């Protein structure tokens, strides 16, 4: 999966999601889900994504059980659970096997999304770990002053402000620095973007796209001309 171009994977996410919407047999969806799990196994995805996949499985099972408990038919309940699992699983697969910078480059150069928007996506993903580290640092600083996350819900919420307030102020200063830095480095002008990214199509992309197109045609035909 890593050698497949990001655009191919984006197309795959959309088309296979479409298949999941169109198919209404639990057996077909289960087959598709099995194929997705196989793809995961082949893709050498990082361990964290298996964890995500695991929780997704549990959530999907829960959803199915809930539908069933609420009086839906067994087949329908399974279809709902599998569809949800399929569509989310596809997205996890995309993120696990694509570098964010490649995704941005594909969005900008192949899908013509304006660079500024695509950059914001990358930049926010880039700052998530930093933000989490900052949350931890603030939490620790307050713990050393007697903060504890115990007591009634109201008290806990009020206490949480002691974390949120320094965090917000720090994030504001931080984004200010980033904005200055962007401007100082000439951001925003007509740029090519995507240095060091690999988004070019190879033979496997053409093969995959052909297979996806054929699959879509087949499923659409089955669904509407049955």
């Amino acid at each position, binding site marked *: 999966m890593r050698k497949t171009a990001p655009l191919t994977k984006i197309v795959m996410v959309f088309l296979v999601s479409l298949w999941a919407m169109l198919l209404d047999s639990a057996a077909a969806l289960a087959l598709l889900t099995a194929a997705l799990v196989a793809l995961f196994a082949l893709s050498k995805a990082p361990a964290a994504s298996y964890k995500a996949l695991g929780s997704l499985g549990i959530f999907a099972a829960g959803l199915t059980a809930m539908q069933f408990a609420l009086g839906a038919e067994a087949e329908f309940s399974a279809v709902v659970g599998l569809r949800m699992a399929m569509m989310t699983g596809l997205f996890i697969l995309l993120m696990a096997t694509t570098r964010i910078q490649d995704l941005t480059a594909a969005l900008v150069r192949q899908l013509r999304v304006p660079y500024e928007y695509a950059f914001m996506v990358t930049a926010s993903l880039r700052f998530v770990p930093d933000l989490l580290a900052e949350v931890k640092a603030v939490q620790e*600083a307050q*713990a*050393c*002053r*007697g903060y504890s996350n115990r007591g009634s819900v109201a008290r806990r919420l009020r206490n949480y*402000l002691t974390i949120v*307030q320094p965090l917000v102020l720090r994030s504001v200063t931080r984004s200010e620095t980033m904005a200055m830095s962007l401007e100082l480095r000439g951001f925003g002008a007509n740029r090519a973007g995507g240095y060091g990214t690999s988004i070019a199509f190879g033979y496997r992309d053409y093969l995959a796209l052909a297979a996806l197109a054929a699959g879509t045609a087949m499923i659409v035909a089955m669904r509407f001309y049955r």
Partner: protein
Amino acid sequence: MLEIDNVSYCYKAGQYAVHGVSLTVADGEFVAIAGRNGSGKTTLTRLVMGLLRPTAGTILLDGRATAGTATAAIARQVGYVFQNPDRQIFRDSVAEEAAYGPEQLGFAAAEIRDAVASALEATGLAAMAAAYPRTLSKGQKQRLAIASALALSPRLLILDEPTSGQDAREKAALMELLTGLNTQGTAILLVTHDMELLARYARRAVVMTAGRVVFDGGVRELFAGDTDVGAWGLREPAAARVARGLRDCGVAPGPLVPEELNGEIAVARRELYA
């Protein structure tokens, strides 16, 4: 009052951030911890606060193991001042900010008032009790962070690089403040890169390298010229470095600050009279 007994901490299996460290800090001591970034100094102090829990070994406060004690409870005995005060300041006045700890730990209203008043007094912020904390200077914010810790009247105060980014005057004022607290009985554990400050203010120095304590002894001993402190990532204070270079000219080793070396050089010049 603090005993660290053969403590280790691993981020991942086999990767030691702190490795078999034993260290005691007695009541009223002034100890500095030095070492490269990543040598385990900060990890060690975080273990003391219970922000991390040792992989092996025990930490005792007044003879009692802290293993099951929450950080908030440890804060009554040990105050911790972080490098960046902006990460903790959140209230609208200096006094309210300092009152946060005592409130959290359920002090009575009168106790809170007294604790805040004496903490602001000790840190020289009494006149600014009503000021808005965010507009204070870096040095004043750091004092407020110290006041916040002092409001719980801890017997040990740990400070992680409290002088970084401050100007020379603020640094000196902060160190004078710590010296004052120390004479009144608060033990000080100062994590610092600044060897000039260490030489001038601390009596005992602990040096860490790759998670281990490689030196624990007098500051004068550390810079007497017999140990290669450069190998531990430290830089000798200027006076100690010059004194070492002048050893062959009859300058006695040991000066830590310019005034001391000045005297030694005078002695060396008049040596024949002596």
